[in-house]
């Protein structure tokens, strides 16, 4: 396999990982407009719960399930108790979600301690396959596949049901949505919980890719999620996917050829995209 192809595949895999974090945020931040700084912490919770259950039962599938459920529960509680009164109020959201981020992160340390925890790949997904005679890890193919599935699933959910438009409308004018006979609060709770569940799901799937978990895992990955959403166009779901792919590939190539600037590349790309097209690549001007 040529190096370029290898890098490209790795880029896609990385993009797919970023997307798994970003997809939930793209609902919560992109559609509902909540600047959710606790998103990464939910992602981390998913990973930790998933790991705990996986280790206890030996079943990765159960781990994924448990992690996702944990995320949904956390999201539901977060929305119900805290976020609900502050839709549309970015300033309050920042303070609130930063507080939640701290609490969730400290919670991880309380339950699992501050140290690294190894996260092994399930046996079936360990190892490499040869692509054009060069080895490529199976797990990475798995993450690409999962990323695609999630993309299609959520896209269908948003376009085939009324949820997509209810959220968009509800963010702009919740009162009017209510007056049309829709329980907008419940929809918001559901979507928020769903977004958190997706984050947690992403956490479990990403865990083995990271190889180990640490409590600050969320913070480190959350920035990338924000970046791809902004690059793709806030509120534009396919945009988030495109942004993830773009960042994944560019980052991989840069890291290889120009490691000195690789650290800066995603933020620099975001700045360039915004200056050139303020609404994001697929975003529409308001």
């Amino acid at each position, binding site marked *: 396999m040529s190096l370029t192809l290898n890098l490209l595949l790795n880029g896609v895999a990385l993009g797919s990982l970023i997307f798994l974090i970003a997809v939930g945020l793209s609902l919560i931040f992109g559609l509902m407009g909540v*600047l959710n700084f606790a998103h990464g912490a939910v992602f981390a919770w998913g990973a930790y719960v998933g790991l705990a259950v996986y280790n206890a039962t030996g079943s990765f599938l159960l781990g994924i399930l448990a992690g996702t459920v944990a995320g949904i529960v956390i999201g539901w509680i977060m929305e119900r108790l*805290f976020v609900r*009164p*502050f839709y*549309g*109020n*970015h*300033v*309050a959201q*920042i*303070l*609130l979600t*930063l*507080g*939640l*981020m*701290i*609490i969730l*992160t*400290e*919670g991880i*340390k*309380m339950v699992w301690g501050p140290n690294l925890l190894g996260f092994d790949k399930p046996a079936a997904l360990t190892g490499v396959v040869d692509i054009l005679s060069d080895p490529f890890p199976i797990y990475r193919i798995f993450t690409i596949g999962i990323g695609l599935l999630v993309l299609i699933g959520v896209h269908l959910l948003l376009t085939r049901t009324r949820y997509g438009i209810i959220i968009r409308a509800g963010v*702009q*004018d919740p009162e009017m949505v209510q007056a049309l006979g829709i329980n907008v609060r419940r929809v918001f709770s559901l979507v928020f919980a769903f977004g958190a569940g997706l984050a947690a799901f992403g956490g479990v799937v990403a865990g083995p890719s990271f190889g180990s978990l640490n409590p600050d895992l969320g913070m480190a990955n959350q920035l990338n999620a*924000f*970046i791809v959403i*902004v690059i793709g166009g*806030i509120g534009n779901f396919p945009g988030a996917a495109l942004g993830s792919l773009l960042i994944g590939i560019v980052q991989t190539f840069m890291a290889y050829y120009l490691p*000195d600037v690789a*650290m*800066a590349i995603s*933020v*620099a790309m*975001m*700045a360039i995209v*915004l*200056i050139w097209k*303020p*609404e*994001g690549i697929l975003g529409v001007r308001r």
Partner: protein
Amino acid sequence: MRAKLFNNNLWLGFVLVALCLVPFVSSSKFLLTMLISVFLMAVYSMSYDLLLGYTGIVSFGHTIFFGLGAYSVGILLSKTKQPNLIWAAILIAVVGAAVIALIIGFLSLRVKDVYFSMITLAFAQLFFIISEKWSSFTGGGDGIAYVRVPTFFNDRVKFYFIALAFLAVMYLFLRRVVNSPFGRTLQAIRENEQRVESLGYNVLRYKLASLMISGCVAAMAGGLWTVLQKYVNTNVFAMDRTIDALLMTIVGGVGTLFGPIVGAGVITFAHEWLSSLSTQYPFLERWLLFFGILYIVIVMFFPKGILGTIRDKWRYKGGSRHAASDSKRRESVL
């Protein structure tokens, strides 16, 4: 009528006198240090409030200016070993901040809302990365230690009064700015930007000016911060530092100017207090948890920050202005 409660000169005079008495009442150098850092952070947060509370723009890169100030002082003083260049360093910082604000502003101020926030975040990250990469100049993560400052600042009481005076002057300066016709225009921009435009104001110029003023003030605070710490490293460009400004402003009350001072005090002392307790009481070991809870409690019970919420309660009788932290603009042009 406007926020009489807090911006009343008599009241402020009283607070000032009380603060002036502190060094005579307590001989704790540590308390003075804490207060000095509160004063400096208060100036930094007030400068942020000019953007957030008055111009209505959420910057995620405010620490760029703080960091510029901190590094100017740190690098100049340690490279030249000339403590008296402090004023030159601060001047450089202020001019540098103005220039950088102009450049960043030009590139990003046309972009609205969260998009603006994200661009500024990108710039802050770039500054952070540059300071990491250019470690021969900035000292990188390990930083520049042994920054020599004028001996004058080594006397904690003198430094205390300098910092207090600095706070007082900056407060009066910023209050004047927000109450001037210029400041009024900023507030109108916060409320409805395109309407201001259609009244014939060049919005970009006002926003740029506000970013520059705010940046210059933050740079001064950053410069004095290095004088206090005698140390500077890449942390001054880290996201955390911007979040500090954001938190202190929000906790105190957005758009109140005096609020950030309160916020700086509350956050600094709560931080110190909780982290000190944590080493004494095992159940407080995870003290950050309580810090997180503090944020949430403040949002839930003081939705407009401590001062903002109290002020609102008072103002209802007068039926006066509203400094809504975040106005959702439902109306469109058409």
